[in-house]
């Protein structure tokens, strides 16, 4: 028998050492001047590297992204990008300029159309479209970055980082990279002698660079109450009375649309009048939605853990540290991975919106000609089937689905949609666009956001369909048609069967819930403008200028 080939067991560490030596050889220390960032990137990044470019639906390492895109493709190429969000033009430039050729991501938002074009031209190879949590998981399995380019608020002389309220994905990225022989480079908005707090210790960080401009943050979760319609108020009343109150939902996550913003603004008025204060909506996994301020100020809310922060909310959050998770320095620490975990295993309900839903309840926001992905929604909008603790809402839902002897409960997954969206496009359809998209992309599966078998309720202006109580696919289909209103899918309903479902409480109209649609006016909203929100906050909320009319 031949002697085994001697194996090198620390190749990652050796590779790391060589990269750091190359940087040192260029005279680069730990603090990098902005004008030498390209020298650094070209020194420490190698062709074929797996590179994580931090960016999500809010915070973006935009300076590092632009700098990487400006590197010489002769020196850096064949990169495999792993990143939460493909949002900036520079992200796509990496592929168009030949620096990178493979992408694993979760959400592409505004670049969705450009991305689809690159895929069709075969200039980009998509590994997979993930959810946030799933991608974080793969950072620790088979997609560990060689180099992570991250964004922080501030660095001190040693390289300790303060992440500010928008902590978000950074801890997950840095941990995976720093402990597997990778290089961590942080762009910072400022250098401080003393940080408010240390979010990332210096020995996990190799280089810091002071960005010429503060990193971009998108105010993604600000909904102007002035744009909430009376139809949305009606749907919010039905959801509160027919779901929140009936199941006693205390721990939950909301989507980001106007539908759920309406619910938040009805808590201090309509829900309080129903005597629900303290009985619903006490604990949240939620970004700091400005529209939650009136409910917080009214004493509805005990706790909110956040995925990220929201522009303008920092002073308010600091002043409400009983409610939000804040450091000893007073500022918030968010954490996307932990908040997603809370959404999966500690919440009893997710409620959000979608663009299309089929007759099995499958839904998707994917539209033709764009490759977008879904961020965190597929995790939040799912019932994790593994074992978990019991709660009244979870048990009630489980027993509705499987009878009184059910051995497990169910998380409530509620889809809240108007039957028609803008331009009179019906939300309810026979077949999702996702199937055509699958063919166009040559993907293994259609891009479905939330699977129908996870959906427990559908709320439309026509009423609530409780899918837990349906006992056959036919009943499920008719329950969906029964709340689909005047869409072609709704018009094709079997009237007798829908009336039967209504008699059994599977479909409930507003009047079945004791709600008079004429009461659904905007006067029920605790705030009707962004200015009202500022007043509720006692002047602590500072909305971005595009939301101000003063």
């Amino acid at each position, binding site marked *: 028998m031949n002697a085994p080939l001697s194996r090198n067991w620390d190749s990652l560490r050796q590779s790391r050492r060589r990269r750091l030596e190359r940087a040192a050889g260029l005279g680069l220390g730990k603090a990098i001047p902005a004008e030498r960032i390209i020298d650094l990137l070209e020194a420490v990044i190698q062709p074929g590297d797996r590179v994580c470019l931090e960016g999500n639906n809010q915070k973006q390492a935009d300076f590092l992204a632009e700098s990487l895109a400006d590197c010489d493709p002769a020196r850096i190429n064949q990169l495999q990008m792993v990143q939460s969000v493909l949002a900036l033009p520079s992200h796509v430039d990496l592929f168009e300029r030949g620096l990178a050729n493979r992408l694993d991501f979760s959400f592409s938002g505004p670049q969705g159309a450009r991305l689809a074009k690159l895929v069709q031209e075969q200039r980009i190879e998509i590994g997979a479209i993930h959810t946030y949590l799933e991608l974080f998981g793969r950072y620790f399995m088979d997609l560990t970055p060689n180099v992570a380019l991250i964004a922080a608020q501030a660095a001190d002389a040693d390289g300790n980082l303060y992440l500010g309220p928008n902590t978000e994905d950074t801890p997950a990225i840095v941990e995976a990279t720093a402990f597997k022989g990778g290089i961590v480079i942080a762009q910072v908005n400022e250098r401080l002698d003393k940080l408010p707090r240390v979010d990332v210790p210096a020995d996990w960080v190799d280089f810091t660079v002071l960005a010429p401009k503060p990193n971009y943050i998108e105010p993604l979760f600000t909904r102007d109450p002035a744009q909430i319609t009376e139809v949305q108020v009606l749907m919010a009343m039905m959801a509160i009375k027919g779901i929140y109150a009936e199941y006693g939902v205390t721990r939950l996550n909301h989507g980001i649309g106007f539908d759920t913003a309406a619910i938040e603004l009805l808590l*201090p*008025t309509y829900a*309080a009048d129903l005597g629900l204060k303290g009985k619903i909506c006490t604990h949240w996994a939620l970004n700091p939605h400005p529209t939650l301020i*009136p409910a917080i*100020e*009214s*004493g509805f809310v005990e706790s909110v853990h956040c995925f990220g922060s929201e522009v303008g909310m920092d002073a308010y959050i600091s002043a409400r540290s009983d409610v939000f998770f804040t450091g000893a320095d007073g500022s918030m620490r968010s954490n996307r991975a932990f908040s997603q975990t809370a959404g999966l295993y500690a919440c009893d309900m997710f409620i959000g919106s979608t663009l299309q839903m089929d007759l099995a309840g499958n839904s998707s926001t994917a539209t033709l000609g764009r490759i977008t992905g879904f961020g965190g929604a597929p995790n939040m909008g799912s019932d994790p089937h593994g074992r978990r603790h019991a709660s009244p809402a979870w048990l009630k839902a489980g027993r509705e689905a499987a009878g009184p002897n059910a051995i497990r409960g169910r998380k409530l997954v509620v889809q809240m949609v108007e039957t028609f969206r803008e331009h009179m496009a019906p939300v309810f359809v026979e077949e999702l666009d996702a199937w055509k998209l699958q063919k166009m992309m040559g993907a293994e599966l259609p891009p479905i956001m939330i699977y129908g078998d996870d959906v427990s309720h559908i709320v439309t202006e026509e009423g609530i369909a409780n899918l837990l109580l349906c006992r056959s696919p036919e009943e499920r289909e008719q329950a969906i048609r029964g709340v689909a209103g005047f869409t072609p899918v709704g018009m094709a309903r079997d009237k007798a069967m829908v009336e039967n479902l209504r008699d059994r409480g599977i479909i409930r109209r507003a009047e079945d819930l004791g709600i008079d649609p004429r009461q659904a006016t*905007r*006067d029920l909203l*605790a*705030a*009707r403008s962004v*200015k*009202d929100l*500022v*007043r*509720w906050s006692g*002047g602590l909320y500072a909305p971005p200028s595009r939301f*101000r*009319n*003063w």
Partner: protein
Amino acid sequence: MIPSLASRHSWFEATARARLAGLLDPGSFAEILPPAESQPSPHLAMLDLPGAFDDGVVVCYGQLEKKPIFAIAQEGQFMGGAVGEIHGAKIVGLLRRAVQEKPAAVLFLIDSGGVRLHEANAGLIAISEIMRAVLDARAAGVPVIALVGGSCGAFGGMGIVAKLCSAIIISEEGRLALSGPEVIETVAGVEEFDAKDRALVWRVTGGKHRYLMGDCAELVEDDIPAFRTGVAKLLAGWQEAAPGLAQLRASQQVLENRLAAYATYRDGLQVWAALGIARPDSVPLLDRDSLVALKEGLPT
């Protein structure tokens, strides 16, 4: 908890009829030319534009704290409350009847950009007739109170009508001026006035500015009951001297002084600073009570 924020009935967002329902004593609303008797505009019909059975204005009898009241309510959600021929005739008719019947007041719920351009001269004539009728009612001893807080404000000819009334009650959301922001931008260019800058529009035409300038008798919350309380308060001690030459000259002097002091300013912020307000930038966020207190503390 801020109960005043949680339980308001917005005047700004309400329809003309909802405003009247909340303003007058319950059950006292009696519409003149109710839906079955009124008629839509013949001019709009000729242009194939949809009309409204009341032509965008409600005229009625009613009571407020048991006092007999006449009321006019423009519907801003129909053609921006613009004044056409029938719309104007209903208003003029009610004001003329007030001269004969002498109610405690005529309440004029203004929500209008001015003349309905589709009706051209008929609309212009209607506005001038309204002006004369307002002055006739006042001369007959009937106060005409303008209530300004709708989404269309009081602009163009209706801005002038508002200033001809005995008194104006305005909310922060209300706006009052002659040329509307879009008109100024169209005629004089965006450099002169950026109509999309909503904050600027309110700083120059909005209720708080008008109240600080002394153009309005009362500033009230954007709340239907607050307008009702405001009217009741105003009427409780109502006294109006008959207009005389000396009084007109004094008013003219006030306007000339204002022009001399502020003509070069571009923004309400500058005017407020000149009025002696220490932190003009805080004004837009002040609530109604704080702003009233601020005005009372200003040097006169």
